[in-house]
């Protein structure tokens, strides 16, 4: 892995600045000093003697953000650490990630939030903790939300576990709305989905695997939208996966409910038909859905119903995944391939414009979380991703920065090479070996 470097002075030359806030493209060099943008201009290389990155043929844009990442620290440092997860994030072009709280111990106390903030301070990538909705993620009593927000939590979620008790969810939405942070829910009716290893439909019937019906998700989405409307809280639907859920979010938004949602690259690029060989690296929750759902999600992303793209990066050890399908845990890696999959499967196909999808990774997550958008202006912190959008590359499992290898994309041809990222006074440039 290439090192993260600190530079007093750094010049990004020859690239085109794409500013997601106004959609403008400008051929300008960026001179960075002590982590801040010192100067935007042409031909700044003349007489410059500091670190240089040749960004010719690249886009320079606000750093991408992934709001749904499982960093596994504390508790499963064999699968991922904050450091390795941040390295994977950089390789994927991200300068910020949200850390999901299903760790051991779970992020339900100020101590864990502070631990994450502290460990994240040493990173180029900003680690934003999401704290639990309920103590121990048990779904019974809400956490000390006020103090968790003060400690640095940017949202609440019991991700992996839905909050099954509607009264608890109501209280959580009502209480959290005081701090203007979203409540992120993994929407799943636990009884309807119980025992299901994949999407219920023709493929589950063919494969003889117990399925989770699409309504196990949409019923919870409907409940949560009703609660958000009633309480005035902000519900964010994590990894939306079905056409029915999407329609509910669309209607909720039309009715002025504070509801937002995100979609994963795998739910856009793959359907349940991919499970024909029982590959445990295609097992995640929510599961891969039908082709009709995939098409609906693409429409939802285009028409703005879906606010953000997020990876649901979920590292698992080889031992855990190299078992029969039913025994394998849910989850696949996503940080390093998210951008590539989106550019290949949505942009190259002509279904969406490059700028539209970039906004879902630059503006979308920050808007949902109420975070400021980095600005590409003189005097501002340099928080940038350097990308060659059309360049093709092949995914190689062996070259991943993550500590885990549970991903189905080995050998896939993707688009969009990340040359490097800049943030917090650090910069990182990808080496030749890339995932």
């Amino acid at each position, binding site marked *: 892995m290439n090192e993260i470097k600190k530079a007093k002075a750094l010049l990004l030359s020859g690239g085109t600045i794409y500013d997601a806030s106004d959609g403008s493209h400008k051929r300008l060099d960026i001179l960075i000093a002590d982590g801040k943008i010192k100067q935007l201009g042409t031909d700044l290389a003349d007489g410059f003697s500091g670190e240089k990155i040749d960004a010719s043929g690249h886009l320079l844009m606000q750093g991408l953000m992934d709001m749904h990442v499982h960093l596994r620290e504390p508790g499963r440092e064999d699968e991922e650490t904050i450091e390795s997860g941040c390295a994977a994030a950089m390789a994927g072009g991200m300068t910020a990630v949200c850390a999901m709280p299903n760790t051991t111990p779970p992020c339900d106390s100020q101590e864990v939030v502070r631990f994450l903030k502290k460990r994240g301070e040493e990173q180029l990538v900003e680690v934003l903790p999401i704290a639990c909705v309920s103590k121990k993620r048990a779904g019974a009593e809400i956490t000390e939300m006020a103090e968790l927000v003060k400690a640095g939590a940017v949202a609440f979620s019991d991700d992996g576990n839905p909050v099954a008790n509607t009264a608890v969810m109501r209280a959580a939405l009502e209480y959290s709305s005081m701090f203007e942070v979203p409540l992120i829910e993994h929407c799943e009716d636990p009884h309807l989905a119980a025992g299901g290893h994949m999407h*219920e*439909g*023709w493929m*589950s*019937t*063919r*494969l*003889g*695997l*117990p*399925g989770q*019906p699409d309504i196990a998700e949409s019923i919870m989405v409907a409940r949560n939208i009703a609660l958000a409307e009633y309480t005035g809280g902000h519900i964010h639907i994590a990894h939306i996966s079905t056409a029915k859920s999407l329609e509910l979010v669309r209607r909720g938004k039309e009715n002025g409910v504070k509801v937002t949602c995100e979609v994963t690259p795998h739910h856009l690029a793959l359907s349940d038909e991919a499970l024909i*060989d*029982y590959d445990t690296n295609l097992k995640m929750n929510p599961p891969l859905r039908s082709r009709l759902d995939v098409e609906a999600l693409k429409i939802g992303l285009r028409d703005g119903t879906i606010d953000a793209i997020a990876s649901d990066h979920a590292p698992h050890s080889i*031992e855990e995944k*190299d*078992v*029969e*399908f*039913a*025994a394998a845990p849910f989850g696949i890696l996503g940080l390093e391939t998210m951008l590539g999959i989106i550019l290949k499967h949505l942009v190259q196909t002509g279904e969406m414009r490059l700028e539209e999808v970039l906004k879902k990774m630059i503006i979308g997550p920050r808007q949902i979380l109420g975070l400021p958008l980095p600005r590409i202006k003189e005097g501002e912190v340099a928080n940038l991703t350097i990308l060659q959008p059309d360049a093709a590359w092949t995914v190689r499992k062996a070259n991943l920065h993550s500590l885990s290898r549970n991903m189905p994309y080995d050998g896939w041809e993707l688009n969009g090479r990340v040359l490097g990222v800049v943030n917090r006074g650090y910069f990182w440039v990808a080496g030749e070996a890339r995932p």
Partner: protein
Amino acid sequence: MPLQQKHLLGLEGVSAEDISLILDTATTFREILDRPIPKVPTLRGLTVVNLFYEASTRTRISFELAEKRLSADSVNFTTSTSSVKKGETLKDTIRNIEAMKIDMVVVRHQAAGVPRFLTQCVDAAIINAGDGMHEHPTQALLDMFTLREKFAKLQGLRVAIIGDISHSRVAGSNIRGLKAMGAEVMLCGPKTLIPRDVEKFGVQVTYDVEDAIAWADVLNVLRIQLERQEAGLFPTLREYHAEFGITQQRLERAKKDITIMHPGPINRGVELDADVADAEYSVILNQVTNGVAVRMAVLYLLSGNEESVS
């Protein structure tokens, strides 16, 4: 012509030619079973492991007998606890067994896809003896063998499968095999036990058992498990019998010859009445006998042994 597969993981994608080859080969073995000494040296020196992660009486005995009749060496590994609980993965278990130099593995497991998973772990030929709710190909083959014995051909035959289709690997393999052989298939059971989108197999579905009886030449009656009632999928065994049970009275009302099959073990008085199970139009015990011959054929054809069977 050899079989077009190295393993028997299921009947999905298996051609009518391959199924016919297995059934034709089984005919030869069926004759051997009636000899005074029902044993041939065909698979001498070959070692077969019967790996059963789920309780089984007839399938395991049937495979074991088939192996012995062919003079193969067989070893049994039976456990009701999964290897995961014992702290050893399935992959480690199978690789350890393979390291003892074995040629074929007959596997039954609670989880769908396990036979396919084993093909990725070892080189031995894998025979699926039932995986979760997925397939049980030798059961479907012996069912088809039994039907061919009685009706001479499967083309156009009307077979109704009655009961818990959702959880039945017997149904899973029978549907695929019968469709490949040109038979017509109807499924019948409570709606809660019919899997989603099952019509895509090219089968009809009815929730009225009398419709199924009126339509069918053959009823393949599945065992109903008490645990499905406990899971709330139907109210009581009593009501199941009243609505879906195969009774003498229902068969008489249909006023035609009908053949009764059951993969066993039978819950007498629930899915099938005792007098129907034991009637002359029931071929249930023929199925059991034929099972040995069909499994001999599968073992022989997958062994790669080119010697003709005498």
